[in-house]
């Protein structure tokens, strides 16, 4: 009987002492973590893509909670919807940003850009770009080895085996910017998605003089300046024989697309042109 009593007392005493020590240690080394970090992390997409510029969603959540304003903090994958939830969770005002999307600024398919040599090395754009200018006479264009496809975590970018160029799936692209960083030729750009996904851009990055660029690729920007002249909104600038359309200033009038002699300016997701609709019936009438 005595033995049991002593055992219970001893163990009870030991437990009580340990509990007291643990209580003080826990108080001393307590790490305060803002509960809002968890809340923010909860609403984030958990893609951990790094598109926001932080190491992952947790790091972004921490940055959001610590920051005084949400200026400059944006989750491209979640977009405005998620950012509104984040703002609600930490009790701040949401910053609304225009949704963006990746565009490939090269249209040098095998047809448009004849090969002048053959690459036989490691299948990586980074390696090829470190070695030499590329398989065609255009040393600025797409190398077609698919570093961007490997970099895309959202299955939104695929190499088209016929053209040899990457194509972006607008539904899936989250504008995280991984492909932009992966491309050694800096061909991919994040641009404003635009109303109804409509956008106009120069699909070329060749800075050679017009004649050289045209010789290398049928659809190169030759820096002729016609688009710059026709643009009523000063959205187009020409630098180093290459036109660039400012997505903020561009009003999507499509005049530049019409005047471009090489077809280097691309329009996406626009309805068919009116002129074509009017011309077509005339022809039909004649045919009838």
């Amino acid at each position, binding site marked *: 009987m005595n033995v049991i009593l002593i055992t219970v007392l001893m163990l009870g005493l030991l437990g009580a002492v340990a509990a007291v020590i643990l209580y003080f240690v826990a108080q001393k080394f307590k790490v305060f973590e803002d509960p809002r970090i968890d809340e923010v992390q909860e609403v984030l997409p958990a893609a951990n893509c790094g598109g926001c510029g932080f190491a992952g969603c947790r790091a972004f959540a921490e940055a959001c909670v610590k920051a005084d304003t949400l200026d400059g903090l944006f989750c491209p994958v979640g977009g405005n919807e998620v950012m509104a939830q984040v703002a609600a969770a930490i009790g701040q005002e949401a910053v609304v940003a225009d949704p963006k999307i990746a565009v490939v600024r090269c249209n040098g398919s095998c047809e448009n850009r004849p090969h002048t040599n053959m690459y*036989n090395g490691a299948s990586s754009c980074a*390696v090829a770009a470190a*070695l*030499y200018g590329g398989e065609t006479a255009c040393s600025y264009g797409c190398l077609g080895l698919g570093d961007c496809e490997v970099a895309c975590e959202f299955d939104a970018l695929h190499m088209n085996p016929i053209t040899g160029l990457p194509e972006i799936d607008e539904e899936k692209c989250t504008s995280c910017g991984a492909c932009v960083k992966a491309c050694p030729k800096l061909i991919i750009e994040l641009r404003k998605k635009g109303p109804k996904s409509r956008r106009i851009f120069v699909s070329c990055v060749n800075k050679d003089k017009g004649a050289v660029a045209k010789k290398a690729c049928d659809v190169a920007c030759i820096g002729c300046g016609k688009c710059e002249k026709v643009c009523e909104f000063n959205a187009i600038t020409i630098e180093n024989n290459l036109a660039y359309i400012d997505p903020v200033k561009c009003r999507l009038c499509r005049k530049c697309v019409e005047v471009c002699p090489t077809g280097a300016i691309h329009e996406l997701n626009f309805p068919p042109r009116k002129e074509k609709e009017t011309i077509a019936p005339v022809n039909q009438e004649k045919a009838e």
Partner: protein
Amino acid sequence: MKTFKIGGIHPPENKLSANKTIQVAPLPTQAIVMLGQCLGAPSTPVVEKGSEVKVGTLLAKSSGFVSANLHAPVSGKVVKIDEFIDASGYKKSAVVIDVEGDVWEDAIDRSTTLIKEIKASKEEIIKKIADAGIVGLGGATFPTHIKLTPPPGKTAEVLIINGVECEPYLTSDHQLMMEKGEEIVVGITILMKAIGVNRAIIGIENNKPDAIAHLRKIVAQYSGIEVCPLKVQYPQGGEKQLIDAIINRQVPSGTLPVEVGAVVQNIGTAFAVYEAVQKNKPLFERIITITGKSVKTPCNLLARIGTPFSQLIDFCGGLPNDTAKIVGGGPMMGKALVSVDVPMTKGSSGLLMIPEAEAQRQTIRNCIRCGKCVSACAMGIEPFLLMATSERAMWEEAESAHIMDCIECGSCMFVCPSNRPLLDYIRLGKAKVGAIIRSRK
């Protein structure tokens, strides 16, 4: 027989143009002189469109500490200073000269008499070498005058002359030793005076017994110069390997050869130094080997810088029909050209035409961790690890695995049973890690 201790391979030698007398290549109709011909900053042009130049006229000045002068290789008129594709397909600035006649600058002594006596002082020699735009002709094209002035606090004890020519196919240095042995040895005495050493060793691999015997006979008249025969092993022509082979000293990682008291110069450079100091002749022509298994007449040519490669190929019997790849330099370290229209530069030691059957790379398979690349690596680093880190963009790990020590000799890729593109990725890694290291400063 001496050789270096770590790694090394023995690729088939294929010295097809051995013992072919050096022929003078015909003058081009238009010379394209690239402004970036040496390691470091491209030179700044001092001529303009329309300038009349003679052979040896200064075209462009050195534009920084690591940079070299550039001289007109032909006489005629500068038609434009424009961008032109270099061997890698990128556009670089070049001076284009339309050739008219062959008028040399009056200061150049064109006689063939050997001048042994060195009148110039140490400083004058280095100045003359810098003025003549001499760069390392082994292929690295590092400006020679910088190599001759060791950093403060370091003293050179011995001059090592690289007559190894370990690259398969190439024979230009071999032929130069056979034909211009006397001049080379005088060039070596000039270099010894410039560095302030009284000992020089010429390293020659023993697959060139005629060159060893020939130079031994010549150096017998000079004191302090000796010839050291070496066992054939690639990459013995690497600076650090050669120092290890000849004087048995190991250059620590990240330091220059002068750390162990050695300065290494190439045979071709010694000859160019002789011509610059004794004959006032700037570097505007060099010996280049045109070779390949299907080439009609593989040969060693004395060609002017700026000559389009296509003209040199035509001189040697034209481009063989089965050519699939044209490599500037040797097969191990050379780089494939994007076009035959690119011009020769100071670093062009050879032009190799590879037939279809040999040009294609084999299918890449998985790494089987056999370690052959590690055994072959002459720098004692681990190529498979460097490739893996580069492939995954793990630059810190690549740096700590000493990626910057790689001399890009290609031995690892040569021995890899899985045909892995080791050097491709290591080159990428070196470029990235190099940029990171520079950005820290």
